[in-house]
């Protein structure tokens, strides 16, 4: 019996060693599934803002995601409240909405209705205003603002500029 329990102890010890190996290989397996460096470094997107027309939605592609760029009309700006103003990106005299065009509910791309001046999601009926703020369920939050930097009249997506950092601190990017 004594012998048997000794064998039991060594059996457990061996099991522990095998367990360490198994956990080690799980780490490798987990990391094999991670996005590849080439995917992560999928570049930066530059957008020339001088050609953007007011109340006409421009959709750019950044890291496989659609980015909405909407130049506001003076009428829109006149109607805006503080929450909306805080999300505006100012370049020279003009104000823009720049956001990731994926509905915060389940990731569909809302369409822009320029007449009604809002975004409507075809999937589950969610709506957003011209500042990307959710105004009709089910989306739980505004359209997020991607990291950006303003370089003259060029918008660089993917780089965190001063303006972006300020907005992030104010908590309006999500």
């Amino acid at each position, binding site marked *: 019996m004594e012998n048997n329990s000794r064998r039991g102890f060594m059996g457990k010890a061996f099991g522990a060693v095998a367990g360490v190996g198994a956990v080690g290989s799980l780490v490798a397996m987990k990391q094999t599934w*991670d996005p*590849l460096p080439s*995917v992560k470094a999928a570049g930066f997107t530059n957008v020339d803002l001088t050609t953007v027309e007011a109340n006409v939605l421009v959709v750019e592609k950044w890291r*496989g995601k659609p980015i909405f760029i909407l130049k506001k009309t003076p009428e829109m700006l006149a109607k805006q409240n503080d929450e909306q103003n805080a999300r505006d990106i100012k370049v020279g005299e003009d104000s823009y909405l720049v956001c990731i065009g994926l509905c915060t509910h389940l*990731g*569909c791309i809302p369409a822009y209705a320029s007449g009604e001046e809002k975004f409507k999601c*075809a999937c*589950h009926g969610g709506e957003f205003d011209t500042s990307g703020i959710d105004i009709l*369920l*089910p989306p739980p939050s505004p359209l997020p603002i991607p990291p950006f930097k303003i370089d003259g009249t060029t918008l660089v997506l993917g780089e965190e500029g001063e303006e972006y950092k300020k907005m992030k601190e104010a908590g309006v990017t999500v």
Partner: protein
Amino acid sequence: MAHFEKAKSIHDWLDQRLAIDKVNKVMQTEYWIPKNINFLWAMGMVLVITFMMLLVSGIFLLMYYQPNIATAFDSVNYTIMREVEFGWLWRHVHAVAASVVFLIIYIHMFTGIYYGSYKKGREMIWISGMLLFVAFSAEAFSGYMLPWGQMSYWAGMVITNLFSLGSLEMNGIVEWIRGDYVPAQAFLTRFFMLHVLLVPLAIMALIGIHFAALRIPHVNNQDGDEFDYDEESAKYLAGDTKGSKVIRFANDFLSKDLFVVAVYLIFFFYLVFWNYGFAMDPVNFDPADGLKTPAHIYPEWYFLWSYEILRPFSKDIGLMAFGFAQVIFVLLPFLDRSPNVAPANRRGPFAIWFWLMIVDLIALTAMGKLPPEGIFSTIGLYAAVTFIALWVALPFITMMEKKK
């Protein structure tokens, strides 16, 4: 070492080495099945046959399919559908079988629920069956990604987004699952691997467990009768085949199964040749485009009821309701507090519960596909709430049930 004699025949030679006579007895001629059954008891065999068709058609599709986001769509719709001889047949069989297998699974499941075949020692049959349902769901979903059409892409987007767990915003998990910020090459290749290797392996292992779980408690019968299998099988072997309550698996049970399978195959191939549209959504014949959402996004019909439970609520509550719907069926043997094994219609309030559940699931299924507007979202909301309420009520309803 065992003693081997010179074999008298090939059969004898094999029997000495593999005990084929014994295996045949245990697996077939003396595997006893109750006689008091109806055609619903053949659904297991129908599922086996459907799974075999999926396997065979899948093997041929695998020889021409290319898991590459640039060529996947054309390898299916051009190479397989236009060039490969009978490629269209394999694809139609594969697509229709993938859809019909769920119809049969649901019938099989609700047969179990109706006759109470999940309690008194049969819990593991039920649990292994529900695990099979999960594995088949994973298989269906991963397979749906492969043609890389619009529905593949957007279903992949929407379903993987669920793993961010709502307001927890765990986008890292979503990106980890996808291997990218959006469904792309890494996503397609890994779902291809899951579809052709890992999940089928799991399914085959689970089928083994599911069958093994049947051996000790035996198959249930139409009246939930308990009887002594040793006594009844002795009666059968003594020649009283008419008086015995049991039959052999082969050929008795098998001959009935295969007749049901034959009728099923007529229905199945009618769908394959003439009515396959339900299994191949038109939207998925548009190639995947990450910048254009289809006007309506919906899963295949067999996922609609759980999808609809997600929809009518705000994001977090919807996710919780969805999670609830995913696990609750597994717990059925423990939520049903009544010891009675009998058809639902003889179980008083449980009968109402059973038929209400069926109607509710059909309502959820229909609303899951219809656009979430007006009356449809209202019905969807009520049906989702009813679904949850039914499960909450189940232990109380079954506790009140009289013991037989």
